């Protein structure tokens, strides 16, 4: 089947180039913003406590290196797309390559910005409490590494889209399903990545404020980040269903648009809950550091609040599953 009066080889090639451009172009937004934020906080930190500028600069560079990883994932996907040797050109393959680019490009935004937040706040924290610099850097490394999870999910989906053999599937809802799969994980990762960063940022401040509460603060941070990532896990689930389910051939426009909308619904629906859950976790972590004796209650209120905020992501998932299986 041909589209736009070009043959399949050209079409697949075009999709690969556009996908690569989108992956790297969007992928650069998050990491660059996050690293800039880190540097600005580091400048503030050094202005406050110039004696320890060496430790602060080291911490800033380590933090920036981890924030960068989301855009390095994008770079890997973009290079794979540009130099990929497509052996089975078809319109489905073209859709898969474009979707891989979209998924990785959007997916890197949240994690990049998010990882910059703990990196920046940890610089300020070191300026405030230089004696615990080691502990603050360790806590920051854990926080930023967990922030990368949504970007890793996006990369997994992108790689599956790149390398999954197409075989003989019905061209017409499958194309739309694959693009939906890319959008679902990619967009849902934006909120989760940033939300996780908010929780991690508060924990770096907390460790500086009350170094003896480090264990409780890090544990609350990890649970809070894990729950803020749940929307991106739902996005991953919807993507897997859209990629691996085989759809009956149908050339009607509504079938295709339905599957595309399923991915779009979960993707957009995941952004808000991810950020909201991150806010809840940020508050809980901040106050656990100040009032350690209420840690249990704070954790519980965080989880209850997150569960309510999460319910909107669950509505989005229900609507996408209905779009996939019922409509």
């Amino acid at each position, binding site marked *: 089947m041909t589209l736009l009066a070009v043959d399949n080889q050209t079409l697949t090639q075009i999709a690969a180039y556009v996908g690569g451009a989108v992956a790297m172009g969007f992928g650069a937004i998050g990491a660059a913003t996050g690293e800039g934020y880190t540097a600005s906080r580091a400048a503030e930190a050094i202005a406050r406590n110039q004696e320890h500028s060496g430790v602060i600069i080291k911490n800033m560079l380590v933090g920036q290196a981890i924030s960068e990883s989301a855009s390095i*994932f994008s770079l*890997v996907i973009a*290079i*794979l797309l540009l130099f990929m040797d497509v052996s089975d050109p078809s319109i489905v393959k073209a859709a898969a390559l474009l979707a891989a680019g979209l998924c990785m490009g959007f997916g890197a935004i949240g994690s990049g910005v998010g990882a910059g937040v703990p990196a920046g706040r940890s610089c300020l924290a070191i300026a405030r409490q230089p004696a615990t610099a080691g502990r603050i850097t360790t806590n920051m*490394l*854990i926080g930023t*590494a*967990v922030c990368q*999870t949504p970007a*890793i*999910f996006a*990369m*997994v989906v992108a*790689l*599956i889209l790149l*390398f*999954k053999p197409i075989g003989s599937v019905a061209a017409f809802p499958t194309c739309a399903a694959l693009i939906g799969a890319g959008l679902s994980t990619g967009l849902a990762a934006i909120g989760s990545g940033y939300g996780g960063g908010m929780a991690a940022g508060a924990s770096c401040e907390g460790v500086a404020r009350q170094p003896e509460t480090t*264990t*409780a603060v890090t*544990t609350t941070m*990890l*649970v809070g*980040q*894990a*729950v803020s*990532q*749940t929307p991106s*896990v*739902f996005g*991953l*689930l919807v993507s897997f269903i859209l990629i691996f389910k085989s759809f009956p051939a149908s050339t009607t426009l509504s079938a295709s648009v339905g599957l595309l909308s399923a991915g779009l619904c979960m993707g957009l629906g995941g952004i808000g809950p991810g950020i909201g859950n991150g806010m809840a976790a940020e508050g809980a972590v901040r106050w656990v550091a100040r009032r350690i004796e209420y*840690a*249990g209650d704070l*954790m*519980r209120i965080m*989880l209850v609040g997150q*569960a309510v905020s*999460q*319910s909107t992501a*669950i*509505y989005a*998932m*229900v609507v996408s599953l209905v779009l996939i299986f019922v409509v």
Partner: protein
Amino acid sequence: MDRLGEIHQLIIPLPGYTVTINLEVLVMTGIVFFLALTFGFAAGRKKSLLPGPVQVIGELIVTQLYGLTEEALGKTHAKTYAPLICALFIFLLISNWLGILPHLEEPTRDLNTPLSLGILGFVIAHYVGIKEKGFKIYIKSYFEPVFFLMPLNLIGELAKIVSISFRLFGNIMGGAIIILVVSYLTYSILLPPFLNVFFGLFVGTIQAFVFTMLTVVYISVQLK
């Protein structure tokens, strides 16, 4: 590159349906069991007031996790559930670290392992909930705040299994795929050891801890 996502399966056709067994996962899980038992044996064999290095590591893991469980569940419940939590953490930790050894791969890379552990935690949490609150109050909690929200509350509970197991699976499989792809792109020069340390040891430890803590939290939510 073609090995991406490939699984060695033993497919047994039975009348009516087929049984599929993922051989590698079974073997790797067996290796993890063996390593965990060896560790437990080495840690507990010669218990002394001046502990040896293995005993120190064992005591460190157990006391830390026991403390965290006690904080979340209270003293009496911690006595019942802390051994489970410690075992879960040690199993996941060794599973996630296994991939850094050549020719071995993480059992958690296959969705079956995280999913079954997730269901295990879910069933235990709800068992605790029913036992503590009584069946009536337990069921009533689904009809709150308004009775017609019941289906969504139910989906919300089931979504917990999805979120806990896919998080572990996505991280471990993602790390493994990234290591594979980057090794292929760089002809295995220079980068793979660092990636193994980051995704294998570091992310593996964090995700094992997150999974364990979420299981504790799910139990504690049912208690209250």
